[in-house]
Protein backbone atom coordinates (compact mmCIF):
# COMPACT_ATOMS: atom_id res chain seq x y z
CA UNK A 1 0.00 0.00 0.00
CA UNK A 2 2.73 2.38 1.06
CA UNK A 3 4.71 1.24 -1.95
CA UNK A 4 1.86 2.02 -4.35
CA UNK A 5 1.44 5.43 -2.77
CA UNK A 6 5.15 6.14 -3.14
CA UNK A 7 5.04 5.10 -6.80
CA UNK A 8 2.03 7.28 -7.58
CA UNK A 9 3.29 10.27 -5.61
CA UNK A 10 6.72 10.22 -7.21
CA UNK A 11 5.39 9.84 -10.74
CA UNK A 12 2.90 12.67 -10.21
CA UNK A 13 5.61 14.84 -8.64
CA UNK A 14 7.98 14.12 -11.52
CA UNK A 15 5.39 15.00 -14.15
CA UNK A 16 4.38 18.15 -12.25
CA UNK A 17 7.97 19.29 -11.81
CA UNK A 18 8.63 18.63 -15.49
CA UNK A 19 5.53 20.59 -16.52
CA UNK A 20 6.53 23.48 -14.27
CA UNK A 21 10.11 23.44 -15.52
CA UNK A 22 8.94 23.59 -19.12
CA UNK A 23 6.35 26.31 -18.49
CA UNK A 24 8.68 28.45 -16.44
CA UNK A 25 11.34 28.14 -19.08
CA UNK A 26 13.92 26.35 -16.88
CA UNK A 27 14.40 23.87 -19.68
CA UNK A 28 14.13 24.67 -23.35
CA UNK A 29 10.67 23.49 -24.39
CA UNK A 30 11.97 22.97 -27.91
CA UNK A 31 14.02 20.04 -26.57
CA UNK A 32 12.10 19.00 -23.45
CA UNK A 33 8.45 19.67 -24.13
CA UNK A 34 5.98 19.93 -21.27
CA UNK A 35 3.93 16.79 -20.54
CA UNK A 36 0.79 18.65 -21.53
CA UNK A 37 2.31 19.42 -24.92
CA UNK A 38 3.24 15.75 -25.33
CA UNK A 39 -0.32 14.67 -24.55
CA UNK A 40 -1.60 17.19 -27.03
CA UNK A 41 0.89 15.97 -29.66
CA UNK A 42 -0.37 12.43 -29.09
CA UNK A 43 -3.65 13.63 -30.56
CA UNK A 44 -2.15 15.36 -33.58
CA UNK A 45 0.21 12.56 -34.65
CA UNK A 46 -2.09 9.77 -33.53
CA UNK A 47 -2.90 8.31 -36.95
CA UNK A 48 0.58 8.51 -38.34
CA UNK A 49 2.15 7.07 -35.21
CA UNK A 50 -0.36 4.23 -34.90
CA UNK A 51 0.14 3.37 -38.56
CA UNK A 52 3.88 3.32 -38.07
CA UNK A 53 3.56 1.26 -34.91
CA UNK A 54 1.32 -1.25 -36.67
CA UNK A 55 3.84 -1.57 -39.49
CA UNK A 56 6.69 -2.06 -37.03
CA UNK A 57 4.81 -4.61 -34.95
CA UNK A 58 3.83 -6.61 -38.04
CA UNK A 59 7.47 -6.85 -39.12
CA UNK A 60 8.47 -7.69 -35.56
CA UNK A 61 5.87 -10.46 -35.40
CA UNK A 62 7.18 -12.09 -38.58
CA UNK A 63 10.82 -11.76 -37.53
CA UNK A 64 10.00 -13.07 -34.07
CA UNK A 65 8.10 -16.09 -35.37
CA UNK A 66 11.05 -17.03 -37.58
CA UNK A 67 13.50 -16.45 -34.73
CA UNK A 68 11.54 -18.59 -32.26
CA UNK A 69 11.28 -21.50 -34.69
CA UNK A 70 14.95 -21.24 -35.63
CA UNK A 71 16.21 -20.60 -32.12
CA UNK A 72 14.26 -23.40 -30.47
CA UNK A 73 14.90 -26.05 -33.10
CA UNK A 74 18.58 -25.24 -33.57
CA UNK A 75 18.96 -24.88 -29.81
CA UNK A 76 17.54 -28.34 -29.18
CA UNK A 77 19.66 -29.95 -31.88
CA UNK A 78 22.89 -28.21 -30.86
CA UNK A 79 22.13 -28.66 -27.16
CA UNK A 80 21.53 -32.37 -27.32
CA UNK A 81 24.41 -33.39 -29.59
CA UNK A 82 27.55 -33.19 -27.51
CA UNK A 83 30.01 -32.50 -30.35
CA UNK A 84 27.84 -29.80 -31.90
CA UNK A 85 27.42 -28.15 -28.52
CA UNK A 86 31.13 -28.17 -27.71
CA UNK A 87 32.09 -26.84 -31.12
CA UNK A 88 29.33 -24.31 -31.73
CA UNK A 89 28.54 -22.84 -28.33
CA UNK A 90 31.27 -20.17 -28.43
CA UNK A 91 30.12 -19.14 -31.90
CA UNK A 92 26.55 -18.74 -30.67
CA UNK A 93 27.76 -16.69 -27.70
CA UNK A 94 29.81 -14.51 -30.04
CA UNK A 95 26.90 -14.07 -32.44
CA UNK A 96 24.75 -13.05 -29.49
CA UNK A 97 27.24 -10.61 -28.00
CA UNK A 98 28.71 -8.89 -31.04
CA UNK A 99 27.10 -5.58 -31.98
CA UNK A 100 25.11 -6.53 -35.05
CA UNK A 101 24.87 -2.90 -36.05
CA UNK A 102 28.25 -3.40 -37.72
CA UNK A 103 26.75 -5.56 -40.43
CA UNK A 104 23.60 -3.51 -40.81
CA UNK A 105 25.07 -1.40 -43.67
CA UNK A 106 25.92 -4.60 -45.52
CA UNK A 107 22.43 -6.04 -44.98
CA UNK A 108 20.94 -2.84 -46.40
CA UNK A 109 23.36 -3.06 -49.31
CA UNK A 110 22.19 -6.58 -50.05
CA UNK A 111 18.46 -6.31 -49.43
CA UNK A 112 17.76 -2.66 -50.07
CA UNK A 113 15.46 -0.36 -48.14
CA UNK A 114 12.17 -1.69 -46.93
CA UNK A 115 10.62 -4.61 -45.16
CA UNK A 116 13.12 -7.38 -45.89
CA UNK A 117 16.15 -5.92 -44.07
CA UNK A 118 13.97 -5.10 -41.07
CA UNK A 119 12.70 -8.67 -40.80
CA UNK A 120 16.16 -10.10 -41.44
CA UNK A 121 17.80 -7.88 -38.87
CA UNK A 122 15.05 -8.45 -36.29
CA UNK A 123 15.41 -12.21 -36.76
CA UNK A 124 19.16 -11.93 -36.40
CA UNK A 125 18.74 -10.15 -33.07
CA UNK A 126 16.21 -12.54 -31.58
CA UNK A 127 17.48 -15.93 -32.76
CA UNK A 128 20.73 -16.11 -30.80
CA UNK A 129 19.48 -15.30 -27.30
CA UNK A 130 16.70 -17.86 -27.74
CA UNK A 131 19.13 -20.43 -29.11
CA UNK A 132 21.66 -19.80 -26.36
CA UNK A 133 19.14 -20.27 -23.58
CA UNK A 134 17.63 -23.36 -25.20
CA UNK A 135 21.10 -24.90 -25.58
CA UNK A 136 21.72 -24.27 -21.88
CA UNK A 137 18.32 -25.68 -21.01
CA UNK A 138 18.91 -28.90 -22.96
CA UNK A 139 22.39 -29.27 -21.49
CA UNK A 140 21.02 -28.94 -17.97
CA UNK A 141 18.13 -31.39 -18.28
CA UNK A 142 18.30 -33.59 -15.19
CA UNK A 143 20.19 -36.74 -16.26
CA UNK A 144 18.01 -38.87 -13.98
CA UNK A 145 14.93 -37.97 -16.00
CA UNK A 146 16.62 -39.19 -19.16
CA UNK A 147 17.68 -42.42 -17.48
CA UNK A 148 14.13 -42.94 -16.21
CA UNK A 149 12.71 -42.37 -19.66
CA UNK A 150 15.14 -44.88 -21.16
CA UNK A 151 14.36 -47.45 -18.47
CA UNK A 152 10.66 -47.05 -19.20
CA UNK A 153 11.25 -47.70 -22.88
CA UNK A 154 11.08 -44.22 -24.41
CA UNK A 155 11.90 -44.05 -28.12
CA UNK A 156 14.16 -41.22 -29.28
CA UNK A 157 11.13 -39.31 -30.44
CA UNK A 158 9.37 -39.82 -27.10
CA UNK A 159 12.53 -38.75 -25.28
CA UNK A 160 12.52 -35.40 -27.08
CA UNK A 161 8.80 -34.86 -27.02
CA UNK A 162 7.97 -35.99 -23.50
CA UNK A 163 11.16 -35.24 -21.57
CA UNK A 164 13.55 -32.78 -23.21
CA UNK A 165 11.01 -30.39 -24.68
CA UNK A 166 8.95 -29.95 -21.49
CA UNK A 167 12.12 -29.68 -19.42
CA UNK A 168 13.37 -26.92 -21.68
CA UNK A 169 10.18 -24.84 -21.59
CA UNK A 170 11.38 -22.47 -18.81
CA UNK A 171 14.67 -21.64 -20.57
CA UNK A 172 12.84 -21.36 -23.87
CA UNK A 173 10.43 -18.83 -22.39
CA UNK A 174 13.29 -16.90 -20.79
CA UNK A 175 14.96 -16.77 -24.20
CA UNK A 176 11.73 -15.70 -25.87
CA UNK A 177 11.34 -12.89 -23.36
CA UNK A 178 14.83 -11.62 -24.10
CA UNK A 179 14.30 -12.24 -27.79
CA UNK A 180 11.18 -10.14 -28.21
CA UNK A 181 12.89 -7.00 -26.91
CA UNK A 182 15.91 -7.59 -29.16
CA UNK A 183 13.63 -8.31 -32.10
CA UNK A 184 11.72 -5.08 -31.73
CA UNK A 185 15.01 -3.27 -31.24
CA UNK A 186 16.40 -4.72 -34.47
CA UNK A 187 13.35 -3.72 -36.49
CA UNK A 188 13.36 -0.19 -35.06
CA UNK A 189 17.08 0.25 -35.74
CA UNK A 190 16.63 -0.68 -39.40
CA UNK A 191 13.71 1.68 -39.70
CA UNK A 192 15.75 4.49 -38.18
CA UNK A 193 18.83 3.73 -40.25
CA UNK A 194 17.21 3.08 -43.58
CA UNK A 195 13.49 3.01 -43.16
CA UNK A 196 10.81 4.52 -45.27
CA UNK A 197 7.99 3.15 -43.13
CA UNK A 198 7.39 2.07 -39.55
CA UNK A 199 7.74 3.67 -36.16
CA UNK A 200 11.54 3.94 -36.36
CA UNK A 201 11.27 5.98 -39.56
CA UNK A 202 8.53 8.16 -38.05
CA UNK A 203 10.65 8.85 -34.99
CA UNK A 204 13.73 9.56 -37.06
CA UNK A 205 11.78 12.07 -39.16
CA UNK A 206 10.35 13.74 -36.06
CA UNK A 207 13.84 14.05 -34.55
CA UNK A 208 15.26 15.54 -37.70
CA UNK A 209 12.34 17.96 -37.90
CA UNK A 210 12.88 19.06 -34.27
CA UNK A 211 9.31 18.11 -33.43
CA UNK A 212 9.99 17.36 -29.78
CA UNK A 213 6.42 16.97 -28.43
CA UNK A 214 5.47 14.62 -31.27
CA UNK A 215 8.70 12.67 -30.85
CA UNK A 216 8.10 12.24 -27.11
CA UNK A 217 4.54 11.13 -27.81
CA UNK A 218 5.76 8.54 -30.33
CA UNK A 219 8.43 7.33 -27.91
CA UNK A 220 5.82 6.89 -25.19
CA UNK A 221 3.64 4.93 -27.58
CA UNK A 222 6.35 2.43 -28.60
CA UNK A 223 7.47 2.06 -25.00
CA UNK A 224 3.96 1.30 -23.86
CA UNK A 225 3.50 -1.26 -26.65
CA UNK A 226 6.77 -2.92 -25.80
CA UNK A 227 6.03 -3.09 -22.06
CA UNK A 228 2.60 -4.54 -22.82
CA UNK A 229 4.13 -7.26 -25.02
CA UNK A 230 6.72 -8.22 -22.40
CA UNK A 231 4.13 -8.28 -19.64
CA UNK A 232 1.94 -10.60 -21.66
CA UNK A 233 4.91 -12.91 -22.24
CA UNK A 234 5.54 -12.88 -18.48
CA UNK A 235 1.94 -13.85 -17.93
CA UNK A 236 2.27 -16.70 -20.43
CA UNK A 237 5.45 -17.76 -18.67
CA UNK A 238 3.63 -18.01 -15.34
CA UNK A 239 0.85 -20.02 -16.93
CA UNK A 240 3.16 -22.52 -18.64
CA UNK A 241 5.63 -23.00 -15.80
CA UNK A 242 3.26 -23.45 -12.89
CA UNK A 243 5.03 -26.70 -11.98
CA UNK A 244 8.24 -24.90 -11.10
CA UNK A 245 9.34 -23.68 -7.67
CA UNK A 246 8.03 -20.28 -6.59
Amino acid at each position, binding site marked *: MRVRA*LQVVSIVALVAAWEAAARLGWVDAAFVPAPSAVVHALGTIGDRALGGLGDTLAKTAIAYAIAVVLGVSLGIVVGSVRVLRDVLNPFVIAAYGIPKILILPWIILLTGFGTTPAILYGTLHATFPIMLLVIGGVRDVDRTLITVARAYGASTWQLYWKVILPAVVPSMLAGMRLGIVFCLLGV*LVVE*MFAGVRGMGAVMGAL*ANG*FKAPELFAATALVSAASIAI*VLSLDWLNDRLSHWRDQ
Partner: protein
Amino acid sequence: MTVAAIRLALVLALVLAWEGAARFSNPLLSAPPSVVLPALVRVLTLDSYPELPRHLLVTAREIAIAYAMAVLAGLAIGFALGLYRTLGRAYGPILAALYAVPAVVWYPSLMLFFGLDSSSKIAFGFLLGFFPITLAVLAGIRQVSPQLVTVARAFGATPLTTFVKVMVPAMMFTLVGGLRTGLALTVIGVIVGEILGSRQGIGSLINHAYGLLRTADYVALVLVTLVLIVASDALASLVEHRAQRWSE
Protein backbone atom coordinates in the same frame (compact mmCIF):
# COMPACT_ATOMS: atom_id res chain seq x y z
CA MET B 1 41.97 -30.54 -28.64
CA THR B 2 39.77 -32.08 -31.33
CA VAL B 3 37.04 -29.59 -30.50
CA ALA B 4 39.47 -26.74 -31.12
CA ALA B 5 40.51 -28.36 -34.41
CA ILE B 6 36.90 -28.67 -35.56
CA ARG B 7 36.29 -25.04 -34.64
CA LEU B 8 39.34 -23.93 -36.60
CA ALA B 9 38.25 -26.02 -39.59
CA LEU B 10 34.81 -24.46 -39.37
CA VAL B 11 36.23 -20.94 -39.39
CA LEU B 12 38.44 -21.77 -42.36
CA ALA B 13 35.51 -23.28 -44.22
CA LEU B 14 33.47 -20.15 -43.56
CA VAL B 15 36.26 -17.92 -44.87
CA LEU B 16 36.58 -20.09 -47.98
CA ALA B 17 32.84 -20.07 -48.54
CA TRP B 18 32.87 -16.29 -48.19
CA GLU B 19 35.68 -16.07 -50.72
CA GLY B 20 33.82 -18.32 -53.14
CA ALA B 21 30.48 -16.60 -52.78
CA ALA B 22 31.89 -13.08 -52.94
CA ARG B 23 33.95 -13.69 -56.07
CA PHE B 24 30.90 -14.56 -58.06
CA SER B 25 28.65 -11.77 -56.92
CA ASN B 26 28.48 -8.03 -57.44
CA PRO B 27 31.80 -6.58 -56.20
CA LEU B 28 29.98 -3.49 -54.94
CA LEU B 29 27.88 -5.63 -52.61
CA SER B 30 30.46 -8.02 -51.28
CA ALA B 31 34.21 -8.16 -50.89
CA PRO B 32 36.02 -11.51 -50.70
CA PRO B 33 38.73 -11.99 -48.05
CA SER B 34 41.40 -11.75 -50.75
CA VAL B 35 40.31 -8.18 -51.40
CA VAL B 36 39.57 -7.30 -47.78
CA LEU B 37 43.04 -8.32 -46.63
CA PRO B 38 44.91 -5.65 -48.68
CA ALA B 39 42.27 -3.12 -47.67
CA LEU B 40 42.83 -4.07 -44.04
CA VAL B 41 46.56 -3.56 -44.46
CA ARG B 42 45.94 -0.10 -45.94
CA VAL B 43 43.63 0.75 -43.05
CA LEU B 44 46.16 -0.43 -40.47
CA THR B 45 49.05 1.44 -42.07
CA LEU B 46 46.84 4.54 -42.00
CA ASP B 47 47.09 4.64 -45.75
CA SER B 48 43.42 4.80 -46.64
CA TYR B 49 42.18 6.53 -43.47
CA PRO B 50 45.01 8.64 -41.98
CA GLU B 51 42.60 10.01 -39.41
CA LEU B 52 41.76 6.56 -38.02
CA PRO B 53 43.59 7.03 -34.66
CA ARG B 54 41.78 10.27 -34.00
CA HIS B 55 38.40 8.66 -34.72
CA LEU B 56 39.25 5.70 -32.53
CA LEU B 57 40.20 8.08 -29.74
CA VAL B 58 36.88 9.88 -30.07
CA THR B 59 35.04 6.59 -29.77
CA ALA B 60 37.21 5.42 -26.86
CA ARG B 61 36.60 8.67 -25.03
CA GLU B 62 32.83 8.40 -25.53
CA ILE B 63 32.91 4.85 -24.22
CA ALA B 64 35.04 5.79 -21.20
CA ILE B 65 32.83 8.67 -20.16
CA ALA B 66 29.60 6.77 -20.76
CA TYR B 67 30.87 3.76 -18.83
CA ALA B 68 32.14 5.79 -15.89
CA MET B 69 28.75 7.46 -15.62
CA ALA B 70 26.91 4.15 -15.98
CA VAL B 71 29.01 2.55 -13.22
CA LEU B 72 28.55 5.48 -10.82
CA ALA B 73 24.82 5.80 -11.44
CA GLY B 74 24.27 2.04 -11.55
CA LEU B 75 26.03 1.42 -8.25
CA ALA B 76 24.39 4.39 -6.52
CA ILE B 77 20.87 3.59 -7.66
CA GLY B 78 21.34 -0.16 -7.30
CA PHE B 79 22.48 0.12 -3.70
CA ALA B 80 19.84 2.71 -2.86
CA LEU B 81 17.05 0.49 -4.19
CA GLY B 82 18.58 -2.71 -2.79
CA LEU B 83 19.33 -1.51 0.73
CA TYR B 84 16.17 0.50 1.32
CA ARG B 85 13.39 -1.97 0.82
CA THR B 86 10.56 0.50 0.38
CA LEU B 87 12.45 2.34 -2.33
CA GLY B 88 13.30 -0.96 -4.00
CA ARG B 89 9.73 -2.19 -3.97
CA ALA B 90 8.46 1.11 -5.32
CA TYR B 91 11.01 1.82 -8.04
CA GLY B 92 12.34 -1.64 -8.84
CA PRO B 93 9.29 -2.61 -10.94
CA ILE B 94 9.41 0.74 -12.78
CA LEU B 95 13.05 0.11 -13.61
CA ALA B 96 12.26 -3.42 -14.79
CA ALA B 97 9.45 -2.11 -17.00
CA LEU B 98 11.79 0.46 -18.56
CA TYR B 99 14.31 -2.31 -19.18
CA ALA B 100 11.64 -4.11 -21.21
CA VAL B 101 11.68 -1.23 -23.71
CA PRO B 102 14.22 -1.62 -26.52
CA ALA B 103 16.70 1.12 -25.65
CA VAL B 104 16.91 2.41 -29.19
CA VAL B 105 13.49 4.09 -28.80
CA TRP B 106 15.23 6.71 -26.65
CA TYR B 107 17.85 7.42 -29.26
CA PRO B 108 15.92 9.89 -31.46
CA SER B 109 15.09 11.98 -28.38
CA LEU B 110 18.74 11.93 -27.32
CA MET B 111 19.76 13.00 -30.82
CA LEU B 112 17.25 15.83 -30.74
CA PHE B 113 18.43 16.95 -27.33
CA PHE B 114 22.19 16.45 -27.62
CA GLY B 115 22.69 16.81 -31.36
CA LEU B 116 24.93 14.80 -33.66
CA ASP B 117 28.08 15.16 -31.56
CA SER B 118 29.65 13.01 -28.89
CA SER B 119 27.14 13.84 -26.16
CA SER B 120 24.30 11.91 -27.74
CA LYS B 121 26.54 8.81 -28.07
CA ILE B 122 27.71 9.16 -24.48
CA ALA B 123 24.12 9.49 -23.31
CA PHE B 124 23.04 6.42 -25.26
CA GLY B 125 26.02 4.33 -24.13
CA PHE B 126 25.29 5.39 -20.56
CA LEU B 127 21.65 4.38 -20.89
CA LEU B 128 22.55 0.91 -22.17
CA GLY B 129 25.26 0.28 -19.59
CA PHE B 130 23.30 1.61 -16.64
CA PHE B 131 20.55 -1.04 -16.56
CA PRO B 132 22.60 -4.23 -16.32
CA ILE B 133 24.79 -2.69 -13.61
CA THR B 134 21.84 -1.56 -11.52
CA LEU B 135 20.07 -4.89 -11.96
CA ALA B 136 23.25 -6.79 -11.03
CA VAL B 137 23.58 -4.81 -7.81
CA LEU B 138 19.94 -5.57 -6.98
CA ALA B 139 20.37 -9.28 -7.79
CA GLY B 140 23.64 -9.38 -5.83
CA ILE B 141 22.07 -7.89 -2.72
CA ARG B 142 19.22 -10.38 -2.92
CA GLN B 143 21.80 -13.19 -3.04
CA VAL B 144 23.61 -12.24 0.16
CA SER B 145 22.61 -14.90 2.63
CA PRO B 146 20.85 -13.36 5.65
CA GLN B 147 22.67 -16.02 7.65
CA LEU B 148 26.02 -14.35 6.87
CA VAL B 149 24.70 -10.97 7.93
CA THR B 150 23.36 -12.47 11.16
CA VAL B 151 26.72 -14.09 11.87
CA ALA B 152 28.50 -10.76 11.31
CA ARG B 153 26.09 -8.99 13.63
CA ALA B 154 26.50 -11.70 16.25
CA PHE B 155 30.25 -11.06 16.09
CA GLY B 156 29.62 -7.40 16.75
CA ALA B 157 30.09 -5.93 13.26
CA THR B 158 28.74 -2.44 12.69
CA PRO B 159 26.44 -1.88 9.70
CA LEU B 160 29.35 -0.36 7.79
CA THR B 161 31.66 -3.28 8.56
CA THR B 162 28.90 -5.71 7.64
CA PHE B 163 28.50 -3.93 4.33
CA VAL B 164 32.22 -3.86 3.51
CA LYS B 165 33.25 -7.25 4.90
CA VAL B 166 30.16 -9.35 4.25
CA MET B 167 27.79 -7.88 1.69
CA VAL B 168 30.25 -6.66 -0.90
CA PRO B 169 32.36 -9.84 -0.99
CA ALA B 170 29.25 -12.04 -1.00
CA MET B 171 27.76 -10.23 -3.98
CA MET B 172 31.07 -9.74 -5.81
CA PHE B 173 30.43 -12.52 -8.32
CA THR B 174 27.14 -11.09 -9.59
CA LEU B 175 28.29 -7.50 -9.32
CA VAL B 176 31.40 -8.02 -11.43
CA GLY B 177 29.37 -9.96 -14.00
CA GLY B 178 27.00 -6.99 -14.24
CA LEU B 179 29.89 -4.56 -14.64
CA ARG B 180 31.21 -6.63 -17.53
CA THR B 181 27.82 -6.81 -19.25
CA GLY B 182 27.47 -3.09 -18.67
CA LEU B 183 30.75 -2.41 -20.45
CA ALA B 184 29.76 -4.58 -23.40
CA LEU B 185 26.44 -2.76 -23.70
CA THR B 186 27.99 0.68 -23.35
CA VAL B 187 30.34 -0.17 -26.21
CA ILE B 188 27.40 -1.34 -28.31
CA GLY B 189 25.43 1.79 -27.44
CA VAL B 190 28.20 4.15 -28.49
CA ILE B 191 28.77 2.30 -31.76
CA VAL B 192 25.07 2.07 -32.58
CA GLY B 193 24.82 5.79 -31.91
CA GLU B 194 27.74 6.55 -34.18
CA ILE B 195 26.38 4.45 -37.01
CA LEU B 196 22.90 5.92 -36.76
CA GLY B 197 24.41 9.36 -37.29
CA SER B 198 27.68 11.06 -36.39
CA ARG B 199 30.53 13.15 -37.71
CA GLN B 200 33.34 11.60 -35.71
CA GLY B 201 34.30 8.21 -34.35
CA ILE B 202 34.83 4.80 -35.85
CA GLY B 203 31.12 4.48 -36.62
CA SER B 204 31.26 7.57 -38.81
CA LEU B 205 34.16 6.06 -40.80
CA ILE B 206 32.19 2.83 -41.27
CA ASN B 207 29.20 4.83 -42.46
CA HIS B 208 31.39 6.85 -44.76
CA ALA B 209 32.94 3.77 -46.39
CA TYR B 210 29.52 2.20 -46.79
CA GLY B 211 28.06 5.39 -48.23
CA LEU B 212 30.73 5.49 -50.92
CA LEU B 213 30.25 1.76 -51.58
CA ARG B 214 33.89 1.13 -50.65
CA THR B 215 32.90 -2.32 -49.52
CA ALA B 216 36.38 -3.68 -48.86
CA ASP B 217 37.21 -0.69 -46.65
CA TYR B 218 33.91 -1.09 -44.87
CA VAL B 219 34.64 -4.74 -44.08
CA ALA B 220 38.19 -3.87 -42.99
CA LEU B 221 36.95 -1.16 -40.62
CA VAL B 222 34.33 -3.54 -39.20
CA LEU B 223 37.06 -6.10 -38.55
CA VAL B 224 39.19 -3.51 -36.74
CA THR B 225 36.20 -2.54 -34.61
CA LEU B 226 35.40 -6.17 -33.84
CA VAL B 227 38.96 -6.85 -32.70
CA LEU B 228 38.85 -3.84 -30.38
CA ILE B 229 35.49 -4.93 -28.96
CA VAL B 230 36.64 -8.49 -28.39
CA ALA B 231 39.85 -7.21 -26.80
CA SER B 232 37.98 -4.96 -24.40
CA ASP B 233 35.67 -7.81 -23.45
CA ALA B 234 38.61 -10.16 -22.94
CA LEU B 235 40.21 -7.62 -20.64
CA ALA B 236 36.94 -7.30 -18.73
CA SER B 237 36.66 -11.07 -18.45
CA LEU B 238 40.21 -11.23 -17.05
CA VAL B 239 39.28 -8.72 -14.36
CA GLU B 240 36.05 -10.63 -13.79
CA HIS B 241 37.87 -13.92 -13.20
CA ARG B 242 40.28 -12.32 -10.76
CA ALA B 243 37.43 -10.82 -8.78
CA GLN B 244 35.43 -14.03 -8.81
CA ARG B 245 38.32 -16.27 -7.71
CA TRP B 246 37.03 -17.06 -4.25
CA SER B 247 33.74 -18.41 -5.49
CA GLU B 248 35.35 -21.33 -7.30
